[in-house]
């Protein structure tokens, strides 16, 4: 196996984690990862060095944007009562963060996950999303404020901003 393939393979677990948090649905997430890998393998010869990790995250982020666009017409269904008093603290916490993520605008969710979950630098995220660092920072700030508001039970801001 070439060095390129080894680098791609080593990234699969992290890509799955990112995709799961981004897409929320396990099958849709693995579809995203599979499409990312197929695209990456096909483009091996086009890949002229550089950071394979950022490149894979870029492909996945873009694929998800396309997927979201096609899902845009579907209403977002949220459970009315998802409080399970028997759930352990960690489970309840996991559900809270999942629910909060679901309410984020796509770009903001991606920034939050890339920075916090995947440990990317602001610079890397700016390259992945193809926007200036300032935009990354404002998306991150809005994402954090929104998630915090949702988790703490406040009414989230209804404004939809970049």
């Amino acid at each position, binding site marked *: *196996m070439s060095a390129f*393939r080894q680098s*791609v*393979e080593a990234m*699969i*677990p*992290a890509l*799955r*984690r990112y995709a*799961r*948090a981004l897409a929320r649905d396990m*099958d*849709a997430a*693995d*579809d995203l*990862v*599979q*499409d990312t*890998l*197929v695209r990456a*393998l*096909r483009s091996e010869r086009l890949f002229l060095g550089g950071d394979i990790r950022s490149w894979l995250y870029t492909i996945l982020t873009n*694929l998800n944007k*396309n*997927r979201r*666009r*096609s*899902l845009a*017409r*579907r209403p977002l269904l949220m459970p009315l009562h998802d409080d399970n008093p028997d759930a352990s603290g*960690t489970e309840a*916490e*996991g559900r*809270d*963060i*999942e629910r909060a993520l679901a309410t984020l605008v796509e770009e903001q969710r991606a920034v*939050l*996950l890339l*920075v*916090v*979950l995947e440990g990317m*630098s*602001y610079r890397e995220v700016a390259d992945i999303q193809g926007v200036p660092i300032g935009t990354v*920072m404002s998306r*991150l*700030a809005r994402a*954090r404020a929104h*998630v*915090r508001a949702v*988790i*703490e039970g406040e009414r989230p801001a209804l404004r939809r901003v970049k």
Partner: protein
Amino acid sequence: MTDPTIPVTEDELHAYVDDELPAERRGDVESWLAAHPADAERVAAWRRMAEALHARYDAVANEPVPPRLDLELLDRKPRRWILGAAAASLAAFLAGGAAGWVAHGAASPPALLQNVTGEALDAHRLYVVDVRHPVEVPGDEKAHLQQWLTRRCGRTVQAPELEATGLKLVGGRLLPGPTGPASFLMYESASGERFTVYATKTAIEAAQMRYTTQDNAAALSWAERGVGYVVTGGTDRTRLTQVARLVYDQAERSGG
């Protein structure tokens, strides 16, 4: 050295939490937080948020990687895998019957193909019962129909010849699809059974053929070269497969 009297901005608080702050400013931020409890609480909330994200999702990275993401498998026949995906699954479907095929393609249908299939089934149900106005352009104006749909859909639309299965072109329509215009062609047999062929551009390059039934209709869908196809008809699987295979072969030959 930075000036500790300069107020700490929100951007700096984020940069502090994300380890993006220049080392010489960290001390200033820490003193600021000691003096500003509301900011300190915000920073603490962001840290808890990070912990919750890791607690919820890190386990995913430790799961065994599912076989369908095996690089060797995806890589073995890179070109054929892409171009022949639908053909291979159709062959498996014909050879093994639905049960075997479902096990073979255990991966979930890509959401995009699901959307396209849903639209096609809706259109099928809506128009197939229409006796007087099932289509916009009748089949005896086939050349005009193909030209029109090609222009409006932005890709070559050819109405496949399905005479070999006893089906005659009734005509076609232009429909709004999930990501753009869709071509919708209707065929009919001498006994009045109707099949429809729905096609639209999609972001999926290629996808295996999948079988769906809903109410009294059944559909075979796949994607090839960025076009999603759905052949819908009655629930007779063998018959549907015959028709889908003709559509598939002709789309292959004409290059889309």
